[in-house]
């Protein structure tokens, strides 16, 4: 006998029920259930962390910290969207990591010549393996976007990442960052404006719509 086909809504409901069950089990100390939840959301979490941190290693550290922190805090979970809760912990871990980085700025390990001048890109520091850009096939425009994202203040970067990159709605973002929806809207508007202004500086890399505006700007200036 053929199994009845489940509609999209039914699948979502089933998934939600499964998630609820998994959460219950995880709260009761079932590590496998917890790991299933982590497995389900780790990619979203890592990508949010990556866009906020702009560094893969730092993003991985922040995500791992978030997972450990989430495991410790499982008994404080009070229902609602598990994904939002997880992303909230991830963004907090990112903030902590960014604060730590600010406290302990990394010192480049570039060697000096006998005269005390820095040797830029010494041969022994060259990474012969493929870089992350090559691995993930990132385009120039992606670099430009990431550059502009990194230039934003943390609060703007988090909001635009969650809404535009991760695709969360305003309410979810408000829950994640713990602010009213109005604040999310205004931060998002400002973040988008700043992103547009920043991207205009990349000229040729930009798609037509931005290049057109940049040219207009140049014409006005001349």
């Amino acid at each position: 006998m053929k199994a009845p086909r489940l509609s999209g809504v039914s699948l979502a409901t089933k998934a939600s029920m499964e998630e609820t069950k998994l959460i219950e089990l995880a709260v009761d100390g079932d590590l496998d259930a917890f790991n299933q939840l982590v497995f389900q959301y780790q990619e979203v979490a890592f990508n949010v962390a990556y866009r906020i941190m702009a560094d893969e290693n730092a993003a991985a550290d922040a995500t791992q910290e978030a997972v450990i922190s989430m495991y410790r805090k499982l008994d404080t979970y009070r229902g609602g969207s598990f994904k939002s809760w997880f992303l909230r912990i991830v963004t907090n871990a990112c903030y902590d990591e960014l604060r730590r980085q600010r406290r302990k700025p990394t010192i480049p390990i570039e060697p000096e010549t006998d005269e005390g001048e820095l040797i830029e890109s010494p041969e022994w520091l060259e990474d012969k393996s493929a870089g992350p850009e090559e691995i993930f096939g990132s385009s120039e425009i992606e670099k430009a976007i990431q550059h502009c994202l990194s230039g934003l203040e943390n609060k703007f970067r988090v909001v635009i990442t969650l809404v535009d990159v991760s695709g969360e709605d305003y309410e979810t973002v408000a829950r994640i960052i713990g602010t009213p929806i109005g604040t999310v809207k205004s931060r998002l508007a400002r973040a988008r404006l700043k992103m547009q202004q920043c991207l205009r500086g990349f000229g040729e890399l930009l798609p037509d719509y931005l290049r057109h505006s940049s040219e207009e700007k140049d014409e006005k200036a001349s």
Partner: protein
Amino acid sequence: MKRQADISEKDTRLLGEYLDNALSISDRAMFEKRLQSSPELTQALGELSALKKQLSSLPRKKVPHQFTLTRAEAKKARRGRFLLPTFGWASAVCSVLLVAIFGSEFIFRNFSAPQAEPAPAAYSLQMEDAQVSAVPEAKSLDNQAVYLLNWVEIGGKGGAGGAPYNNYAIAARGELGGGFVEPGEPQTMSESEEAQNVPEAVSAASQKHSVEPLIFGIREGELGQVIATQPVEVYAVSPAAEQPAVVEQVRGPMIQTNVKLILAGLAAAFALLWLTLKLKR
């Protein structure tokens, strides 16, 4: 043409909400009308839409490794779960206790009224002795006329009700606490009367150990009599004996210094542990 940067922040926000389907139906309808009539807004919407598309189409990074926890990691995470809050709370509790101790000591030292030493049981008896012995002395010192004072209104009934025999107060004849004495005309008592009354007072004082019922502070048998009429107690009783000494008690610390030191040490140690754990994480 107006560029998006020239569009107000409010419009940018509205454009964003329109793009994200966050406007209500009525607001959306109104904004669409505005969009139709404003090419600047339309262009800005196009730019914003393109940016959103670019951002949302950023490639998804694959996770560098699984973030799931092993049994050992989970055990470690759970083990340290209570340490941080425990040390934090312990430090806070110790600090609060210290503050409470110092605070209460400060308040007791500076704001509590100085307490009189509790009158010893034999205090009244001593007073009696002092007064009795002081009477002849007072007589020798004071040759002035002794006034019989009436502290009450004419015809009044209040007055010397509370005066016990040993205070040499007036118990007016006929009525308790009141005598028909002309106000402003203090009656004097002759030396003989005085001499008569003094032994009476002395004899009254000699009965100090007997417990007899008092009526309005006066013995039953002495009602209606003038027991004594001299305001000599001013001289008779030395100020030291007259009132219980107000003792500015030199109070020691309520809690021993050792305890305070231990509490302070614990607070510091817990805080240090908490900080170490916090920084480690």
